[in-house]
Each structure stands twice: as structure tokens, then as C-alpha cells.
């Protein structure tokens, strides 16, 4: 339970770093900087398959989308762990 509270807290504060401060600084990952120099084209948006692209949710603000995406990601990983655990017990 303590771990879960810790994880949810991280997700709740994550938009401060991942969105708000990032917008202020105008950040690029090192990979983006390198890609820009060799003029690589990011095809992600051209061949996108998910409505949750880059931790956003359609019609929601980026901050709320980021939080819900984070919670969804954590739930998916923990849920998969639970499924494996139950399958392990059955065998």
C-alpha cells in the first residue's frame, strides 16, 4: 500500500516536471538534439496507432492527460504482474 501511495504521488506531481517546467525550458532530449543536427524525420505522428500518443488524452488538458496516462501505465504493469502471478499459482 505504501508503495502504491508513493507511485501515485510521483504520477500526481509528474506534470510539473514533464509538462509545465518542460514548456518553460523548451526541453529536447539529447537524442532529439542529435536528430535535429542530422535532419532526421520523426515519423511517430505519421504512423501513430494509439489515442494516448506521448502521454496525452484527446480532449483533456496535457496535465490531466499526463496524470491519467501515468496511472494507466502503472495499472497495466501491475495488472500484468498480477496475471502472471495467478497463472504461476495455477500451474
Amino acid at each position, binding site marked *: 500500500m505504501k508503495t502504491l501511495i508513493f507511485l501515485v504521488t*510521483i504520477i500526481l506531481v509528474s506534470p510539473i516536471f514533464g509538462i509545465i517546467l518542460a514548456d518553460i525550458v523548451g526541453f529536447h532530449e539529447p*537524442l532529439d538534439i542529435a536528430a535535429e543536427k542530422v535532419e532526421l524525420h520523426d515519423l511517430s505522428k505519421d504512423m501513430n496507432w494509439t489515442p494516448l500518443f506521448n502521454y496525452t488524452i484527446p480532449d483533456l488538458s496535457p496535465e490531466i492527460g499526463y496524470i491519467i496516462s501515468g496511472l494507466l501505465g502503472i495499472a497495466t*504493469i501491475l495488472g*500484468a*504482474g498480477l496475471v502472471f502471478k495467478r497463472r504461476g499459482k495455477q500451474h
Partner: protein
Amino acid sequence: MHIPDGFLDITTATITYIIFIVFGYYALRKSRGMLESEMISFVSILAAAIFAAQMLNWPLPGGTSLHFVGGALAGILLGPWLGFLTICSVVLVQALIFHDGGITTLGANALNMAIIAVLIGHSSYELLIRNFGNRDSIRFLGAFLGGWLGIIIAGAAAAIQIGYSQSFPYGLAITFPVMVGWHVVLGIIEGIITALSIIYLSRRAPQLLSVERGVK
């Protein structure tokens, strides 16, 4: 660190996918006996924690950011095979659900973060502990070096993959110094977080560390 679609040519993407699949198959076989109920819980909680930590992008003045990758931490805690499965689950969720990292580059991203960073982290830590004993100072140094070197070498691997992509034959001269240069600096934070986490866990729950359990 996550390479998007369009950054790698078909040859590089295929080679990295093959390495990822072969290593993944071997890792699954090697970890079969280790995946007991408690260990599955620990792996999934650690994966969820690393996923959450990766969402904390710390923007830096000058236009870059850093976030914890966690490959070395997973490698030191769980060993190379379970460490791979842990980071692999994070990379898969990021790519398949959020398109953070491409589908054509999934093999490369898994190779860099789930194989290279994990192996370097685990090996650096184990090397120091085996040769100099498991004192706190050595644990700290081993975990720091594991985190720092893991990020640098994973960054270098990403630079080589992009630089050697056929469409951009002269890219390596640019991608390598940029990627390695940034990760030498950003890796210091990864090393410190890894080292502090390992020191904390070695005091609170030393049985969680793979070296203590004799995992190779």
C-alpha cells in the same frame, strides 16, 4: 533515450530486433526458475516504480532534460535476466500504449535500455563487490558506476545505431559526440539515484540485491 520511428533504417532495425528477441528468449528461459510468486510481485512493483520515475522529466536550462532510466538499478537488484524483463515491460508499455519510442525501433530501444544498461549496471556493481567487498562505500561506488556507465554506453549504442543507419552515412560523427557528451553529464544523476537506492535497500532489505542472492 527512446528512439522514435523513422530514425533507423530497415537493416539496423532488423538487427536490433533480432538481438532483442534472442536475448529475450534466453532471458525468459534463464528466469523461469526465479519467477516465484514473491519475485513476480517485486519485478512488477519495480517496473511500475521505474515507469513512474521515467515520467519525472527534469528540464534543465539550456533545453535538455533528464529522467531516471533505471536499467542499472534493475540489473543490480534483480540480475541481468529479471532486470531485462523488468525494463522490457516498461519499454513495451511506453511504446505500445503511449508511442513513447517507435515500433520499428522497439528492438533498438530494448537493446539499449533493457539489455545494455542492465548488463553494464549489474556487471559494474558485481565486479566491485566481488573484488573489494560489500562495504557501503563500495556498494555506493559500484552502483554509481553502474548507473553512470550504463547510461553512457546505452547512449553511445543509440548514437551508433542512428549514425550507422544507411540513410545517414555521415551521421555518426555528429550523433556520437552529442549523445555521449550529454549522457556523460546526465548519467551522473542516474548514478547518484541508483547508488542512493542501493544503499537504502542494502540496509533495509539486503536480500533484494541480486549479488547477495548469488544471481549471475
